[in-house]
């Protein structure tokens, strides 16, 4: 009964989405008055979809094995939290979650958005409705999450134990919130292109959504990177796996959009440009969803292959992206450009930022999709990995990081202040980091070395916008920018340190034997069996020392019974200056165990930097929201002029 209620709610929501889209068409042809029920319809649609998702959570929580999805992905012996998380740890459930977030985002726009003109809002809600409708159709036709099994089997087939992990339980929702937040920017852009009202008010209506989505994508990518780092046991933090790229591409586009939207909001310039980026950002979200959900790419994460669903998603993607681009082609050229600016100005700096980010996005996009095209055209199979992405995108990313230190110091419209004076100290720091790295570590690669130099430069340069004025008087959004840019420097330093100074040891050891890695002496104490709720394991006791005191690490190999699977659980110990990372492998015939040990100096800076970037975004978001709550009366005169 619960499952049927969920399905019914989904059908109703689909009907309402169709009605909402119809209202938009009618309203744009005649008058906005026609669309008076629009806000209410959008809210009810959101509530219904949320109800459907709640029903899915309920059947998973109750382990109702008569629902096919529960049977395939759950097991009554699983810990409760993973039973619930299992609801979105699979294809159908995650697509339902996606559309739920989409519909709720639409409801929030309907409830709270008061900034744009009424016509643009109606058009944006219509666009949001047609997006949702496509995904409702996908669920109802090609992946019904509520399908029943008859007779109901006694117990489920469990969830892959690799996926039984808090990181993975909360990772997809974070990314989905980010993806779908970009759908609102897309809908606002489509709405504004339809009505021609592309102005600063629109930018300010879009900005909180773009910022929010960008923060969540940043968090999702950072958390996903740490998850891959400790869970895969390979010691790496980014594998250029297509699934990782699927989240990186929307992030790159959203980062560009986030910067250009500020130009539109502050100066009324870069109109067509910003609309284009809004369309691209959500297109990248859909490309990401398509890549992950269609199982089309070879990938360590890839799910089962199902051509019907893949084709359905591809058609949806083609319709939405195609329609948005056609709309852009017809309307984008007619937009009046806003305030002019000089070649050296904040605007130009942001244009350069956008261009470089777009080039990086293009490189990642081509590298990720190239294998598909080659296979489709010639049948040949190939993969593109770290050697390509690091060599081609790496130097450009460093260039972006370098310019991040300079751009925020430029003033709007025309540069008048002597910026170079402010950059003396950062430039000196960067140069001395370069010289020190050559003296202290002559044999490291070019990229890590340049990484150190740029990181040192940016550490100082990123805080200059605060030093150039009274820091306490600076708006919260400026603080946010500074924190985020400082985070880039921190993350970059971590990546460079990890690439340059990590040491690895792979060997076998019998209990009592000592292995050395970096400054550490690691002794294998003993290997003992242990057990958890639905797994048994062998656990190694490692005693590590580098002179002062002994720390104990316990890496495990776990065996799950349902389905039968074995996983390596790494044990990681964090110190102020790095991480000791240990993995236990298999036992050989002589009784010795395989051990893999890493000493990774300052590797944690990578994720600390990612977190800082997200915190910076959050500060900016809070600052903007507070400002808008305080009312628009005190808006500077020039803003109103370009609005």
């Amino acid at each position, binding site marked *: 009964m619960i499952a049927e209620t969920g399905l019914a709610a989904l059908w109703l929501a689909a009907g309402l989405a169709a009605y909402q889209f119809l209202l938009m068409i009618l309203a744009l042809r005649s008058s906005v008055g026609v669309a008076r029920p629009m806000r209410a319809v959008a809210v009810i649609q959101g509530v219904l979809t949320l109800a459907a998702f709640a029903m899915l959570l309920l059947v998973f929580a109750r382990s109702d094995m008569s629902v096919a999805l529960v049977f395939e992905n759950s097991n009554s012996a699983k810990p409760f939290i993973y039973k619930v998380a299992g609801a979105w740890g699979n294809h159908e459930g995650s697509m339902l979650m996606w559309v739920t977030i989409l519909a709720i985002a639409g409801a929030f726009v309907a409830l709270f958005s008061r900034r744009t003109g009424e016509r643009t809002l109606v058009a944006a809600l219509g666009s949001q409705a047609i997006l949702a409708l496509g995904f409702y159709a996908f669920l109802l036709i090609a992946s019904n999450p509520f399908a029943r099994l008859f007779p109901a089997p006694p117990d489920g087939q469990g969830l892959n134990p690799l996926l039984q992990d808090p990181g993975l339980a909360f990772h997809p929702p974070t990314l989905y919130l980010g993806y779908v937040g970009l759908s609102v920017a897309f809908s606002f852009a489509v709405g504004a292109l339809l009505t021609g009202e592309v102005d600063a008010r629109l930018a300010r209506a879009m900005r909180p959504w773009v910022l929010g989505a960008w923060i969540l994508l940043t968090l999702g990518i950072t958390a996903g990177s740490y998850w891959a780092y400790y869970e895969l046991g390979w010691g790496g933090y980014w594998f250029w796996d297509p699934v990782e790229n699927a989240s990186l591409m929307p992030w790159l586009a959203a980062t560009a959009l986030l910067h250009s939207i500020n130009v539109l909001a502050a100066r009324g310039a870069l109109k067509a440009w910003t609309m284009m980026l809004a369309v691209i950002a959500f297109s990248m979200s859909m490309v990401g969803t398509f890549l992950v959900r269609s199982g089309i790419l070879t990938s360590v994460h890839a799910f089962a292959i199902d051509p019907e669903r893949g084709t359905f998603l591809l058609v949806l993607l083609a319709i939405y992206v195609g329609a948005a681009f056609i709309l852009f082609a017809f309307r984008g050229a007619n937009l009046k450009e806003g305030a*002019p600016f000089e070649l050296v100005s904040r605007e130009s700096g942001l244009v350069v930022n956008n261009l470089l980010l777009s080039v990086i996005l293009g490189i990642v996009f081509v590298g990720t999709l190239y294998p598909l095209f080659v296979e489709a055209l010639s049948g040949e199979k190939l993969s*593109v990995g770290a050697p*390509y992405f690091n060599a081609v995108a790496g130097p450009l990313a460093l260039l972006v990081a370098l310019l991040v230190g300079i751009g925020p110091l430029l003033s709007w419209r025309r540069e008048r202040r002597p910026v170079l004076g402010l950059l003396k100290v950062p430039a000196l720091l960067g140069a001395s980091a370069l010289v020190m790295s050559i003296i202290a570590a002559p044999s490291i690669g070019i990229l890590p070395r340049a990484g150190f130099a740029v990181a040192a430069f940016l550490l100082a340069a990123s805080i200059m916008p605060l030093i150039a004025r009274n820091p306490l008087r600076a708006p919260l959004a400026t603080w946010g920018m500074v924190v985020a840019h400082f985070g880039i420097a921190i993350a970059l330093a971590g990546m460079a340190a990890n690439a340059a100074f990590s040491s690895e040891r*792979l060997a076998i050891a019998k209990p009592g034997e000592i292995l050395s890695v970096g400054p550490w002496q690691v002794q294998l104490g003993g290997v003992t069996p242990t057990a958890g709720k639905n797994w048994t394991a062998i656990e190694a006791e490692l005693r590590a020392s580098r002179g002062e005191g002994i720390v104990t690490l316990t890496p495990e190999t776990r065996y799950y019974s349902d389905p039968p699977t074995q996983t390596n659980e790494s044990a990681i110990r964090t110190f102020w200056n790095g991480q000791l990372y240990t993995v236990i492998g298999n036992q*050989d015939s002589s009784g010795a165990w395989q051990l893999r040990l890493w000493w990774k100096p300052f590797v944690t800076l990578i994720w600390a930097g990612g977190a800082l970037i997200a915190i910076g975004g959050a500060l900016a978001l809070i600052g903007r929201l507070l400002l808008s709550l305080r009312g628009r009366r005190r808006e500077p005169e020039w803003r109103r002029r370009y609005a």
Partner: protein
Amino acid sequence: MKPKNQRLVLVIAATGALIVAVLLAMWGLRSRASFFYTPADIAAGKAAEGQSARLGGMVEKGSVQHEADGVTIHFILTDGRATTPVTFRGIAPDLFREGSGAVAEGRMERGTFVADQILAKHDERYMPPELGNLAAEHKAGKTLEK
């Protein structure tokens, strides 16, 4: 700058960026893409010596041998038509076992595939797409033989 010129400059910059991205990507892909081979492809001499590549197949039953250092293994990958010897130094993944599918990443060196990384199937239902095709082709071949 006049607004009209400004737009022109922006359009040219955007087009330039697009072209630069595609050119850079093409340049990078020419030497850095790693092709997927099956043991039959290797036997036909398709994989160049030392070029980074991926090799997929089934781990032949009884072929896994451990070296004395405890961390190097030798095994044979097969696609039912040909076999390729593989050497791997490291901890084999959780799901790597004889008789099931695996993909090795590495390169050919003097007749042996030297792997840096081994990927095994993720769970019962997951197959690398390449191996999925392989199984289907293999079946189709058998049906034709009959």
